[in-house]
């Protein structure tokens, strides 16, 4: 791992402005796409530092530039609203365990919650799921909000090197090498969950095999296109 910047930017530094706006947009996208309700949060690592930004005790749908908080990877307050989300260890522990990850989304997505309590797992029935393993994302089984570092580390262990982990009777945590990727994956995970639910109602679907997923993964990816689309769907909110 590269050596980290010793001087983390100040929370109100103009260098963070773009990242903050992107984080607020990401929160509004999850609300607009029907993934979050009063709860859930998105985090974004401050590039090259041991710090991350997230929302401060507010619904993603109500997030504003003023309602953000910056913490280090041990949960130390670095600036912003002094009201970190209760489950900040979700972000701190995953970002610490996964230097490749820039962004983490935690939601109570209906479809992740559903498959988190089913015995069959959420197996891919569409190429949108190519970021998942063929037998579906792992499930973190324990009860309790992730309010401690111990629980956060157990969650990061369950996630391991996957892109998503379902949290039993709770929701999910989804990671990405960029904020855009974490959002895209979160929205696609919900889409896949709904599709799998509908398909299973008809009997056993023709799930995608590992080889077939690899074929899709070998094709070119276009991460920027859906981000532009999602932004277009919150345009009204952004201009207000």
């Amino acid at each position, binding site marked *: 791992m590269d050596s980290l910047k010793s001087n983390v930017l100040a929370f109100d530094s103009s260098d963070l402005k773009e990242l903050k706006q992107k984080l607020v947009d990401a929160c509004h996208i999850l609300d607009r796409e029907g993934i979050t*309700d*009063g*709860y859930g949060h998105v985090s974004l690592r401050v590039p090259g530092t041991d710090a991350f930004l997230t929302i401060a*005790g*507010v*619904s993603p*749908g*109500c997030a504003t530039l003023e309602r953000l908080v910056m913490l280090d990877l041990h949960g130390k307050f670095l600036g912003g609203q002094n009201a970190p989300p*209760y489950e900040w260890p979700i972000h701190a522990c995953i970002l610490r365990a996964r230097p490749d990850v820039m962004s983490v989304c935690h939601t*109570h997505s*209906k479809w992740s*919650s*559903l498959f988190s*309590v*089913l*015995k*069959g797992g959420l197996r891919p029935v569409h190429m949108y799921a190519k970021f998942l393993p063929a037998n579906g994302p792992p499930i973190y089984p324990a*009860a*309790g*909000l992730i*309010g401690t570092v111990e629980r956060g580390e157990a969650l990061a262990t369950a996630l391991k090197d996957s892109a998503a982990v379902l949290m*039993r*009777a*709770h929701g999910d945590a989804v990671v990405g090498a960029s904020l855009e990727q974490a959002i895209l994956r979160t929205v696609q995970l919900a889409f896949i969950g709904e599709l799998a*639910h509908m398909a*299973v*109602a008809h009997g056993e679907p023709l799930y995608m095999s590992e080889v077939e997923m690899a074929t899709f993964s070998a094709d070119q990816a276009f991460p920027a296109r859906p981000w532009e689309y999602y932004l277009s769907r919150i345009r009204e909110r952004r201009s207000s």
Partner: protein
Amino acid sequence: MAAIRTDVPKIDSSELKELTEKLITACHILDHEGVTDGYGHISVRVPGADAFITIANISPGCVTRDRLIMQDLDGNYLDGAKTPPNEWPIHSCILKARPEIVSVAHTHSKWSTIFSVLPIKLKPMHHYGKFLSADGPPIYEGIGLVRTVERGNELASALGNGPVVLMRAHGDAVVGESVEQVIERTTRLAMLGEWNHLALLHGEPRYLTAAELEVYNADQRFPMRGWEYYVSRLDGKR
């Protein structure tokens, strides 16, 4: 218990302004979140008094300040609009039986109704259901609108000390220690009902056990965040 006050404030008094505004907002939230239709009502106890305020024979989605009514816990008219909801005993009987309760919501929620007529219980399969017991809410089996004190008392008995009672082929009654809590519980009960319905199509889900619910109940709670969010969704409508 503190002495019951006899100087019950008027429904349009400044003392009750915030509470009545909250009640109206709560009604609009249940409508906006798709829980109520033309029917259903929410009540709030007048602080310290043997009286409550509810909506006067109008859909929660259409309620305005001049459509509120105040009654005492025996159903006597005290103030406001003159037409009490048909089922006022739901509120008076539960508020009388449960002095710690501040607010009661009665809805015909689709998801409560479906589980009120199924042999399968609506059980917590998400921590949003942590206010319920592991074996799900009780069901009031009585047929007929709850428009008599006798039926109201039966409903209150079925509710017992719990937060929710499903009403067979009818809907639910949900109680809380604040209007915000009742709204959170009512909307979450509907979410849980939908999620139970989806899960059961796949077989028996891995419900939360009583011990697991206790773990969640030991965690910190954030009632206002959900309320703020629901209020934000009414913007433009209010």
